[in-house]
């Protein structure tokens, strides 16, 4: 197991390296002058000053030199300086990362546990009206575009009913650190978390359903029933344990998609997270921020894929990894 782990972690290094080079090249190819925002406030700048600035920031170097310099700095945990915000990139990214993790993890926990419960219900009541209804509902939820669902929720819950705020993360008129502030913060989270959770239900619900149905057909459950155990214990204790194994893996694998989905949701709700930062930095040619955000997302994705593999082997003793 340890050898397997070490090998997998070593495999991640070239993958991340290739991804970083690829994204760096793509961002380099994006149209737009990276110095543009910086120069807007300086009307009497001469052409030679502009050239000096380009040389200073190494923007005239060939792309591979720029990439090496960037990579070397990043390995020393220096992500660079955002010319758009006039701050070190990390000072902008870290709070956004925290906000995004709060959003995505809440959506994951709520969406996936609901999906697991619904999947169990569908499997136990296979071919019942409830099963069909749930399958239909989750299918519809999956087909709803997230940005539209977000807008509709804003219309219903914020504009018409006035229960929840339309966007952002904190209201300006609430003193920080108080109980009201916490409630206010939770109110801001409800809509984005719901939208993000809704589209993630179907996959896990279906997987849970088919996984449990498969287990329910096996002989050891007939044995359990023959021993006179109640259906509750047969399903809750004996069947679920095995049925959950592949589901846990699927949940870990879908984490990257939730983070990707948060880009759209955060943009719709004006939530100050990493997804929105990704969007604004790409739109605004903020190269340094965009590159770092992409790399953080890539690391999270790779780590969760590894986590999925490890969980699978750890939960299912029938699987053994070879170093």
């Amino acid at each position, binding site marked *: 197991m340890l050898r397997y782990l070490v090998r997998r972690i070593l495999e991640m290094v070239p*993958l991340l390296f290739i991804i970083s080079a690829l994204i760096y090249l793509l961002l380099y190819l994006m149209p737009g002058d990276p110095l543009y925002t910086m120069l807007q406030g300086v009307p009497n700048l001469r052409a030679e000053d502009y050239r000096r600035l380009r040389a200073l920031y190494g923007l005239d170097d060939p792309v591979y030199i720029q990439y090496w310099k960037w990579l070397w700095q990043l390995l020393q945990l220096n992500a660079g300086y955002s010319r758009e915000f006039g701050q070190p990139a990390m000072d902008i990214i870290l709070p956004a990362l925290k906000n995004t993790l709060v959003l995505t993890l809440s959506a994951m926990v709520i969406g996936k546990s609901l999906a697991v419960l619904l999947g169990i219900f569908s499997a136990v009541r296979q071919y019942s009206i409830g099963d069909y209804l749930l399958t239909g509902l989750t299918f519809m939820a999956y087909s709803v575009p*997230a940005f539209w669902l977000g807008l509709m929720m804003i*219309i219903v819950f914020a504009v018409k009913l006035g229960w929840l705020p339309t966007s952002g993360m904190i209201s300006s008129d609430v003193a920080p650190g108080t109980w009201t502030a916490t409630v206010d913060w939770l109110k801001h989270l409800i809509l984005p978390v719901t939208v993000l959770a809704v589209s993630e239900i179907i996959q896990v619900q279906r997987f849970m359903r088919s996984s449990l149905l498969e287990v329910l057909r096996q002989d050891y459950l007939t044995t359990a029933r023959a021993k006179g155990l109640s259906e509750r214990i047969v399903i809750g204790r004996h069947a679920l344990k095995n049925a959950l194994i592949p589901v846990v893996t699927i949940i870990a694998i879908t984490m990257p998609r939730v983070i990707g*989905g948060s*880009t759209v949701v955060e943009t719709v709700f004006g939530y100050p997270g990493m997804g929105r930062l990704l969007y604004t930095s*790409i739109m605004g040619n903020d190269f340094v921020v965009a590159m770092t955000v992409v790399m953080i997302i890539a690391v999270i994705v790779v780590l969760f894929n590894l986590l999925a593999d490890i969980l699978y082997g750890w939960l299912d003793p029938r699987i053994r990894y070879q170093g």
Partner: protein
Amino acid sequence: MQFAGHQTGYWRIVWRRFKQHRVAYAGLFFFLALLLLVLAGPHVVPYQLDQVSLSERMHGPSSRHWFGTDELGRDIWVRIMHGGRVSLTVGLLVGISTVLIGGLVGIVAGYIGGFLDNILMRIVDILYTIPRIVLLLVLSKIAGPGLLNIMIILVALEWTNAARLARGAVLSYREQEFVLAAQCLGASRWRVMLRHLLPNSLTPLIVAATLDAGAAIRAETTLSFLGLGIQPPTPSWGNLLTNASTNIFIAPLQVFLPGIFIFFALMSFNLLGDALRDAMDPRLTQVRR
């Protein structure tokens, strides 16, 4: 063509199983209804796509303007139908192209194997590891807006699905007798791949095409909504929503309408894909035959 009888037999079974599937009918119905609507829709009302009418700005639905008018007095019904033509075109063309390209790549990788297979599958891995939205945003910024550019980007990102499925199918057929027989009879590599392996891999590929078409519509509308896809004045369901969302407080109906069309489009492709997967599963066919 001595196998023709067998082949029609299979497709007849698929069609019969497809007909029995009520869900499939619903998907097909939604799709055909949408297609008819966006094709005929603009012709049944006397307004042009960009016909501005400053005396009729922001009107609600009426007998003159069924869906109302936008901030320039343009008829929203006409704009949504035209937007639907754009979004459905993207879906259909991207769905077909991803399967043609991905299918070919997958079959070649699976049959020839070795170094080529390794390289292609590593590319697929890398494309899977980078979240789709990152590549969509960056590539559409590089390529610039426009219908053709969007479609090229979507094909470039979504061929991986079909490639994996085709490769998997080919790997399971590669060692079977009919391939060996073809090789012994002197069939060339390309003949084996196109004449023997391709028809046998069609099942997963057709399902992939349907689901990819839905994914393409989702991606196009998302990008257009974010301002990177189809640009106004050309309408798409996505950019109609962006435009309407600026008036979300005064005219919520204008936000509702384009979205419900996207919803039905995605729903129809997902339902069709699901039903086709069930109908074409040979294991199920054998059980019920």
